[in-house]
């Protein structure tokens, strides 16, 4: 008899842990167990982040956001969402990352135009579990009906909005961490208060999803409006969003000694007249990361303009070059006094 009770309890636990088809059917509720339980759900649908995933219509509690200056990924359109479980609240931490509670998730879909339509390529999720953040990539099928876990990553041919044919890389789970690592632990990168719109932050506070509007001294410029911003801010914003996740004292490129975080104000640490350490041929024929007034002899734009393994920076996340990003960084270097 006792055994029977145990068996029944075990079965109940099993049922509770698996996604509830009825909850998913209405498409509007997130499956919190998929976010927080250990393991890797095989499909994106198991999370229930979307009411209509193909159209990228979010479910309840999943809120879209944008970054002022985003990471450039071969010109991909990116759809960003943050999920907070019912009643949960993020905490402001000054200008930096919003502190998202266990159970929260960040969702980012990468899309490219194809035949006049939006083609979803992959959706990356960052899940905040009790054991820490977990990063997983999901690849959309050609029919756009399902996104499946791509633990080992994938490559596919596509054409960028700029018309460049590339071999697009969906990162594997480890590569997710290469960019998302701080002192070896996975962490979000994007939602820092200084890179989020004040209006969005205020709306989150009003909705009870954020404890306070963070005080930000200088916000990263909105990338599309960069021409109206001081070039130093536009360039440093771009470097913060595209490089600083590795190039910081706790990041994957800490050994380089190059620190491209927005808050770093020692010019030498940001590359000015700094020699590379272990750049190998990545340095080209140049001696310094940034030579004031001389972008053509600076390593930073040289590596940004390359697509060759061992030279190209960032190492992950792009297969073509970003002329707009290079232009801003070159203009910034050109305006520096020698």
């Amino acid at each position, binding site marked *: 008899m006792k055994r029977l009770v145990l068996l029944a309890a075990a079965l109940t636990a099993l049922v509770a842990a698996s996604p509830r088809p009825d909850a998913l059917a209405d498409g509007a509720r997130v499956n919190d167990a998929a976010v927080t339980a250990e393991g890797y759900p095989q499909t994106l649908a198991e999370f229930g982040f979307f009411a209509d995933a193909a159209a990228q219509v979010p479910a309840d509690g999943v809120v879209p956001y944008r970054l002022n200056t985003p990471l450039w990924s071969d010109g991909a359109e990116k759809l960003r969402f943050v999920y907070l479980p019912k009643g949960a609240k993020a905490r402001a931490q000054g200008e930096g990352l919003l502190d998202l509670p266990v159970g929260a998730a960040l969702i980012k879909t990468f899309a490219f135009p194809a035949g006049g339509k939006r083609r979803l390529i992959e959706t990356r999720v960052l899940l905040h579990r009790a054991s820490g953040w977990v990063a997983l990539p999901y690849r959309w099928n050609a029919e756009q009906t399902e996104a499946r876990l791509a633990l080992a990553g994938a*490559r596919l041919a596509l054409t960028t909005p700029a018309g460049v044919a590339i*071999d697009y890389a969906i990162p594997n789970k480890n590569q997710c961490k290469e960019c998302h690592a701080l002192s070896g632990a996975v962490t979000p990168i994007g939602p820092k208060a200084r890179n989020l719109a004040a209006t969005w932050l205020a709306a989150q506070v009003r909705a009870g999803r954020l404890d306070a509007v963070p005080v930000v001294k200088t916000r990263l410029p909105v990338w599309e409006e960069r021409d109206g911003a001081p070039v130093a801010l536009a360039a440093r914003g771009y470097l913060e969003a595209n490089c600083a996740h590795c190039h910081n004292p706790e990041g*994957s490129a800490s050994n380089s000694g190059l620190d491209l975080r927005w808050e770093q104000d020692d010019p030498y640490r940001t590359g000015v007249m700094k020699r590379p350490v*272990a750049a190998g041929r990545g340095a*080209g024929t140049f001696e310094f990361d940034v030579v004031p007034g001389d972008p053509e002899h600076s390593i930073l734009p040289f590596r940004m303009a390359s697509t060759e393994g061992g030279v190209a920076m960032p*190492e992950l996340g792009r297969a073509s070059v970003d002329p707009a990003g290079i232009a801003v960084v070159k203009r910034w270097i050109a305006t520096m006094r020698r």
Partner: protein
Amino acid sequence: MRMPEKKLAVAGALALAAISHLAVARTIAVAPGDGAQGRLQEALITAHPGDVVELGAGRFALDDGLSLDVDGVTVKGAGMYATVLDFAGQKGAGEGLLVTSDDVTLRDFAVEDAHGDGIKSKGADRVVYRRVRVTWSGAPKETNGAYGIYPVQSTGVLIDGCVVRGASDAGIYVGQSKDITVRHSIARENVAGIEIENSRNALVTANMVTGNAGGILVFDLPGLPVMGGGNTVIENNLVVANDTPNFAPKGNIVAGVPRGTGVMVMANDGVLVEHNTLENNPTAQVLVVAYPKAFEDKRYNPYPRNVVVGDNLVRGGGDDPQLPGGAQLKAALGGALPPVLWDGLGKPGEALMVAASLPGLSLNLPAQGASAEAARPSPLKLTAPVKRVDRASVGAPAALEARIAR
């Protein structure tokens, strides 16, 4: 006696735990062939601590970098010529294989033609490279990857029985690390054969280093998170005919290594070079210098301190020095420079001590950062060597030895 039910249950649970613990240490076999990239990468991601990822014999055609981020995993091939990870078709990533977890053992396989570095282990403590080959095909060239075997920011590094060839920077490069052993390895036709940089407690012993532009380099550079290199022993190595023209990309620090340098020490505190066979290195068998460039880092000491060149077996060398005015110097000295060359920078009596058996030359540069044109060469005044390294703290931890004994 009847065992109480509760106790029995506990015993059962313990037995089960023991079995499942055994079951945890698995061997995951991965064969070359179709889809090798995905299958191998997935094995490296899903491995658990204690697992062995066993690479089959043959050539794995890979089109992307690989990475390992699970502690305590062994990646083992069928031999450094039998199992080849071929990165000739690599489309992305900065290295062939990247390791970011602790207590990893890499053994018995090869990495060929990686687009960036061969194998990089970063912040990966207690790493073992055993009978691993990292090579680039064809003639040594600037477009080869920078480093072959590249542990950085790690404590506990054992590199044993490895082969590196063709790196456009250093074949074996250990950076910003401590407690290091590099031994029984072959480094040939790289810009630098073996380089220990901004690291402490390194033992470089019983290696064959030949055909590089520079053989064994011990450098300490400014502007890095980890500085203050030293307490390093270079002994019992064969450092022979390192005479390949320097093919490093210009601008690189190793591009400044004169072709034909056997052992080169730049800055550092406490380096012992002894009992090596130094043969036919045409610029200098041993070169000791201060960091030659301008720097801003106030924490940095650019001078060599407590560098000891003890007895070494020396033959030939110094007969084609790649230094400004080298030809005249050579003629004035009867056809060859003496085996030990010092730029003359650093405190006299502290910077460099040389065994009486080895003649030397000081360039007597006037100041740190001065060009070699300002040299006023004179015979090196000998200072009796006092051994200034702490041998007890040199080398990889003993536990790493145990791992390769298996």
